[in-house]
């Protein structure tokens, strides 16, 4: 069986390492597919204007293949699994067929399981996260009582503010945690895949996923597939993106300028300048700051406990 569609996708977008290896095993043995491979590379080169000059994608492919071959990695993206949306774009028929069957099953399931409680769910609201611990937190203008357990659901378009002495830890339904430092204001986009940081500092620990998670300030946007990173937007308008683990793509929203920030690197965006070249960064400062705030929160609860005990003695 020839795999022209997969070759096209591999050459244009790349495939996850395991799929790429399988494809190459086939192409190595199949003259027709190898001829298609060469033709497709030539076509891509022609579209880039020079049939003799390898494209940037070709060079990137060599780098990724070799690094994978010697078990080194540049970024989380190297090992990412195939994106479902990619599959939809590149091989729509099987994906659509599976999707149609799943939809039918789901529709049947909903019809069977529909209960009065479903009707009470607020229209147009999608739960995207949950505050699992927090103090000094205001959600859509309503101050929450301090808590160390999951209590408050976050819906699309929710605005979360954390006061001077507060912190908040938010669990994302799609996978991952967002830690919000004091004096920070954020809001979630409707799909829950984007967080708008107005001011302050957030530490995002994002689980590996298929769709990127985006943090946006007025000047930059930083997106990841799965990683741990901090974005801090100062009152002066400066924004810093600090990566603890993985790779984060940082784009200047005012005039597109993309910078890839790797493990233990940071970039800074000022009012007038694009993201700086990544420099070394030690995550200790952000981690110890967070530990300190959590300790303050625990002390607060211990004090309350002692006060309550005092009332009963």
């Amino acid at each position, binding site marked *: 069986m020839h795999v022209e569609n997969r070759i096209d996708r591999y050459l*244009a977008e790349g495939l996850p390492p395991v799929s790429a290896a399988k494809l190459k095993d086939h192409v*190595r043995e199949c003259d027709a597919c190898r001829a298609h491979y060469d033709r497709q590379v030539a076509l891509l080169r*022609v*579209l880039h204007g020079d049939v003799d000059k390898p494209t940037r994608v070709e060079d990137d492919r*060599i780098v990724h293949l070799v690094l994978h071959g010697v078990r080194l990695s540049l970024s989380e993206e190297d090992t990412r699994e195939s994106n479902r949306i990619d599959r939809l774009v590149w091989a729509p028929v099987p994906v659509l067929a599976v999707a149609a069957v799943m939809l039918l099953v789901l529709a049947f399931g909903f019809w069977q399981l529909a209960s009065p409680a479903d009707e009470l769910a607020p229209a147009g609201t999608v739960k995207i996260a949950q505050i699992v611990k927090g103090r000094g937190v205001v959600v859509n203008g309503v101050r929450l009582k301090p808590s160390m357990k999951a209590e408050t659901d976050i819906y699309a378009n929710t605005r979360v503010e954390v006061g001077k002495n507060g912190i908040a830890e938010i669990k994302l339904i799609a996978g991952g945690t967002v830690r919000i430092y004091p004096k920070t204001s954020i809001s979630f986009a409707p799909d829950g895949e984007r967080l708008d940081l107005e001011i302050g500092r957030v530490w995002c620990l994002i689980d590996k996923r298929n769709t990127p998670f985006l943090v946006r300030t007025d000047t930059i946007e930083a997106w990841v597939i799965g990683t741990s990173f901090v974005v801090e937007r100062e009152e002066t308008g400066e924004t810093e993106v600090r990566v603890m683990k993985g790779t984060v793509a940082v784009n200047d929203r005012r005039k597109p300028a993309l910078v890839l920030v790797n493990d233990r690197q940071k970039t800074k965006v000022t009012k007038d300048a694009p993201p700086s070249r990544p420099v070394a960064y030690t995550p200790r400062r952000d981690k110890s700051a967070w530990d300190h705030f959590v300790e303050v929160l625990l002390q607060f609860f211990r004090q309350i406990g002692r006060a309550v005990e005092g009332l009963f003695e």
Partner: protein
Amino acid sequence: MKEHFVDRATLEEFRRGDGSAFAEVIRAYTPSIRFQVMRYWQGVFQCEEAMQEIWVHTYQQREALDPSRFGEFGAWLATLARNRCIDLLRKQGRTIGPNTKDPTETIDRVEEPPDQENAVAASEIRAALDSFKAKLKPHWRTFFVLHFEQGLGYAEIAARLSIGRTRCKYMKRVLLARAKRNADLRAIVGRSLDSEVDNAR
């Protein structure tokens, strides 16, 4: 002769096994390695396979690189690449390279096609691409220019055109499918592959 492709610090990091440094070395030297490999294999796929083998072998041999001779890294790499090519040819049961020449001959000197021939090919490609572009709707043409002509990635294009990355991928896929059906572009691709085979004879 001093090498200027990568600095000493990068070579030291590469020798220690750092992935980023190795990636930098690969990016810097892949054009010359490709040049060498193309003397022994015709198709892009086979060349890529050989290059991959050479780079993996280079990484495995990195500790043999003498730090006092970092200035000769290019020559060290060329020798390593040539030897690896010969090994691979032997593995494939071939004793000589393409062009019916001895693979052990010097590989530093590669004949360039005449300038005039290059210019004709370039103008032909330009004309075919202009005609292909002219048939595209404005939005698609903009995408084509940004991606294929200016070499921008999806993130930059998505930001500029206010579209999603998935839309970018879809547009690329559609444009590639259209390009495959375009007679002029198909003819250029066919001729370029034919000329590769001719050169190999």
